[in-house]
């Protein structure tokens, strides 16, 4: 057992609150005098709005306002920005205007057309039904490859051929040369399907406006308050940033989806300003399916070149990314920048080339979802490795063994500088856990029951950081607690516990003394919020810097109190002592004394607090190897996941219990993507066929075996804690491990190609196609 708190699997401080129903979410919070907003949404995938008549709705009882695109235009509101920067080729990224409410044209089912504000949500809903919109339907296209075909229905005049961008990264000449000389080349066409993050708490927000100051207050279920505030202030309302406060109470999961500025927040703020009263909106899950953002939605062709011994020579990815109807804030960045940090995974591949085309379609916008480009990159890489093993007759473990990066630092062909890792150890330990020698007997046992068994193993590499830099602070409060102030944000990950563990060790105080202050632009000067598995890496680094600054100040005060020189003091276990004596003072006593200017050194401001901006921009490289074992019922195509094992490296573990929880959740979502989840639009009509959980299949507890998750710790020097991001990894790792197992089970039946999700229908069809040709 480690000496301090860091490294201990403490139960979460926040659990008591969450488990006893005392968490506070936006929907739980009521504002005096509040009004309720409901969004009228487009039933068409693509249509011209010929006329909109809201007179009857406005006259209905309890209705306070009906806002339309024209109203927001008259108010002078700007479109929602897309701050993503993408290194495009052949022209800049095209960012069409995304207004909070549609103007003249709707471009996906669920797009907001009007916002009704009334005394109750029911009255607002009644009024929304009374709004008459005359739509002139236009042809729609819902698949990205089809959208890029000449003559496809056009979404934006400014984006001919529905092309938003072309992206290219890598050395084309070297890649082509490597393919030309290769002993083996394998190629695969793969679809990384569109999925929905489906946090248990749908989006919700309450907006207020203070006419006296002209200031806005937006309370929301979000993950990135500063970004949302900045975008609202800079681009939409064109106000000084300090005039808008954005803050969050408890947030019930986000997975990336809640990072973004959404049209509904603009509608709410506008309505609150017009009406002078708080306005709330709570989405239902169908609205989330229709009109939040989806994830992944990338497809294309991958090729891998190998020499005769199976050494990887080059990788080429030609992808098409579906952006949906608009550029969501990080939408164009995920399949390009983010994808190309992780493609090639943990392997040494001397030449790589990534080409991506971004397409507009008549669907909900696509943006970051747990992993955001890296699951797509790793899935492509690992499927290619499996394909190479099968086609060229290599043992899949041996093939990986031969190609893993073993010497660090390693600079990848696309310029990523991997500082450290235990890729080979992860593989060896996972392969041992997989019990490959015993698999033949297990397979035979399944076959005796008419089932097909498959064993799959796959590696992953996460490139974790998200937005660079982070801000942190520490402040002793009058009640004796210590506030940890952070620009990152927990929306269920357990930061109240893990960051307290870090601070407790640094300050020599018990974890119970700390309180986490986060997600409030009024309390936290800056921050980049949640996303990219960045919190402990960058936020933890900021906290350590703040702790050092705080201890520096405390040392000066302690020296003053002890009448010694600061350099004569030792600090241990929360106490300063004069070296070689028994004389000392606790940090708590220093904090208490610091309240009184009389006990402070000359010129020092009262109070004990410190803050720090962590300038770090390095990426951490969490990695691991996952094993899945499945059983397929060949008659129905149903798949049972029997075993799941992981050996992962997240650097030093601050709290192994929380780490395991993060990995479990990510793996569950990755399994969901592999076997169950798919957002489905009907071709032609563009109607969403998976608009509720009756049709969108999320994994349930009973679908998952007990996940066996083990850790090997290879600390990184990229932050003072030695930690690597663990938040996204499970979702990055699981899809390829599960699909490798499924394809292994189906190989004897002649199945070689299968896209996710491997639903019973898909698997049955694949078996039938393999049999009947």
């Amino acid at each position, binding site marked *: 057992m480690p000496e301090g708190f860091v490294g201990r699997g403490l139960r979460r401080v926040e659990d008591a609150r969450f488990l006893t129903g005392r968490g506070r979410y936006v929907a739980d919070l009521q504002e005096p005098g509040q009004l309720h907003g409901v969004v009228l949404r487009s039933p068409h995938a693509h249509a011209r709005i010929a006329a909109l008549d809201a007179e009857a709705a406005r006259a209905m009882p309890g209705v306070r306002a009906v806002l339309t695109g024209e109203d927001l235009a008259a108010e002078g509101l700007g479109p929602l920005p897309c701050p993503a920067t993408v290194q495009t080729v052949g022209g800049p990224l095209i960012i069409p205007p995304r207004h909070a409410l549609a103007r003249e044209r709707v471009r996906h089912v669920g797009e907001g057309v009007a916002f009704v504000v009334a005394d109750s949500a029911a009255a607002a809903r009644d009024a929304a039904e009374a709004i008459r919109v005359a739509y002139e339907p236009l042809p729609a296209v819902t698949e990205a490859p089809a959208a890029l075909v000449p003559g496809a229905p056009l979404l934006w005049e400014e984006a001919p051929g529905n092309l938003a961008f072309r992206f290219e990264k890598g050395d084309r000449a070297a890649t082509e040369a490597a393919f030309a000389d290769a002993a083996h080349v394998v190629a695969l066409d793969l679809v990384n399907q569109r999925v929905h993050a489906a946090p248990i708490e749908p989006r919700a927000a309450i907006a207020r406006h203070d006419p006296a100051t002209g200031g806005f207050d937006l309370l929301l279920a979000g993950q990135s308050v500063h970004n949302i505030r900045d975008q609202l202030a800079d681009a939409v309302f064109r106000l000084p940033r300090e005039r808008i406060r954005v803050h969050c109470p408890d947030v019930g999961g986000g997975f990336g989806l809640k990072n973004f500025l959404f049209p509904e927040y603009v509608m709410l703020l506008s309505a609150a300003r017009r009406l002078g009263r708080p306005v709330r909106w709570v989405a239902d899950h169908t609205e989330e399916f229709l009109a939040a953002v989806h994830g992944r939605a990338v497809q294309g062709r991958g090729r891998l070149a190998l020499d005769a011994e199976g050494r990887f020579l080059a990788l080429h990815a030609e992808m098409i990314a579906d952006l949906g109807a608009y550029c969501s804030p990080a939408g164009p960045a995920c399949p390009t920048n983010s994808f190309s940090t992780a493609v090639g995974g943990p392997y040494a591949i001397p030449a790589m080339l990534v080409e991506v085309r971004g397409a507009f379609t008549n669907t909900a916008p696509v943006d970051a979802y747990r992993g955001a480009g890296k699951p797509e990159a790793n899935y492509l890489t690992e499927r290619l490795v499996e394909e190479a093993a099968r086609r060229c007759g290599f043992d899949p473990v041996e093939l990986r063994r031969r190609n893993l990066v073993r010497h660090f630092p390693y600079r990848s062909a696309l310029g990523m500088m991997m500082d450290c890792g235990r890729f080979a150890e992860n593989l060896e330990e996972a392969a041992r856990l997989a019990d490959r020698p015993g698999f033949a007997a297990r397979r035979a046992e399944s076959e005796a029951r008419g089932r097909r068994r498959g064993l799959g193993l796959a590696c992953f590499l996460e490139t974790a950081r998200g937005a660079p830099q982070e801000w942190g602070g520490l402040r002793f409060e009058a009640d004796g607690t210590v506030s940890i102030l952070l620009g990152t944000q927990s929306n269920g990950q357990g930061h109240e516990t893990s960051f307290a563990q870090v601070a407790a060790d640094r300050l020599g105080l018990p974890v119970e003394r700390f309180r986490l202050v986060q997600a409030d632009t009024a309390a936290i000067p800056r921050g980049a919020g949640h996303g990219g598995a960045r919190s402990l890496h960058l936020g933890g680094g900021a906290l350590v810097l703040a702790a050092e600054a705080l201890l520096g100040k405390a040392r000066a005060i302690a020296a003053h109190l002890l009448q010694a020189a600061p350099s004569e003091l030792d600090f241990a276990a929360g106490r300063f002592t004069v070296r070689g004596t028994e004389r000392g003072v606790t940090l708590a006593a220093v904090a208490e004394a610091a309240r009184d200017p009389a006990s402070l050194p000359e010129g020092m401001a009262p109070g004990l607090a410190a803050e720090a901006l962590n300038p770090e921009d390095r990426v951490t490289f969490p990695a691991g190897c996952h094993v899945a074992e499945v059983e397929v019922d060949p*008659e*129905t195509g149903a798949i049972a996941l029997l075993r799941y094992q992981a050996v992962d490296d997240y650097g030093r573990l601050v709290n192994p219990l929380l780490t395991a929880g993060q990995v479990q959740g990510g793996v569950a979502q990755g399994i969901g993507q592999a076997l169950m989840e798919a957002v489905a639009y009907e071709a032609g009509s563009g109607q969403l066929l998976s608009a509720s*959980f009756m*049709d969108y299949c999320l994994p349930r507890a009973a679908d998952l075996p007990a996940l066996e998750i083990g850790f090997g710790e290879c600390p990184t020097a990229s932050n003072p804690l030695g930690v690597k991001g663990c938040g996204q990894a499970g979702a990055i790792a699981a899809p390829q491990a599960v699909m490798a197992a499924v394809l292994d089970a189906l190989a004897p039946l002649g199945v070689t190609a299968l896209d996710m999700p491997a639903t019973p229908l898909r698997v049955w069809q694949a078996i039938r196609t393999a049999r009947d040709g």
Partner: protein
Amino acid sequence: MYDFAYHKPGSVADAVKLLTADPEARPISGGQTLLPALKHRLNRPTALVDLSGIAELKGIRKEGDTLTIGALARHVDVAESAEVTSAIPALARMAANIGDIQVRNRGTIGGSVANNDPAADYPAAVLGLGATIVTDRRRIAADDFFQGMFTTALEPGELLVAIEFPIPEKAGYAKMRNPASRYVMTGAFVARLRSGEVRVAINGAGPCVFRQAEMEKALSANWSPEAVANIRQSPEGLNSDIHGSAEYRAHLVTVMAKRAVAEAG
């Protein structure tokens, strides 16, 4: 949800009176189908007539060769009933596997059968056993009761009161669930009655539960899974959605029938 009036009558006669007086009123039992529809504003009844206080609709009784289940018997009641478990174990198992625990604690057999959702479980047992539907005014044979998607022989204002199941010699049920909703994608209920009659009812696959005559014939001659293993169901007219094409459902008819016979023993 739109506004509606609420009534809670104490007898079948009073309930029927309320329903006859207002053609836009609807009976409600467990509410597991009707309430979600109301919440989504898919339905706009003027009034709900809550049947839960009517004693005549409750209870499970075994009399001779007949098992009678009151319309208000919840799925959990059927699953745990000693009478059902001993007389028609396949029916108890079916009830135990409907939806989830919350649904089984509220949903009723009367509501399910009156609703006749193509993806519901009970209609397969009712048709597969050749049960009799007892209403406030008449008795309807299962073969005449299920008329199409969400359509039954019930007249406006007519209440399902109980279902009389003949106790079979053997019966079995197998289903493939829709992975998302967990409703039935395709199911088969097979029974050999004491009269010697063999019945096979297929649910989930088509717009309405239906009998599979070819399988009935084959099983009459040879009660074994092999007897149905090579009988192909035509996909024509079967349901097709993102979870299962008509071809897939047609294929599952054979697989589920085979498994149902194996389960029946």
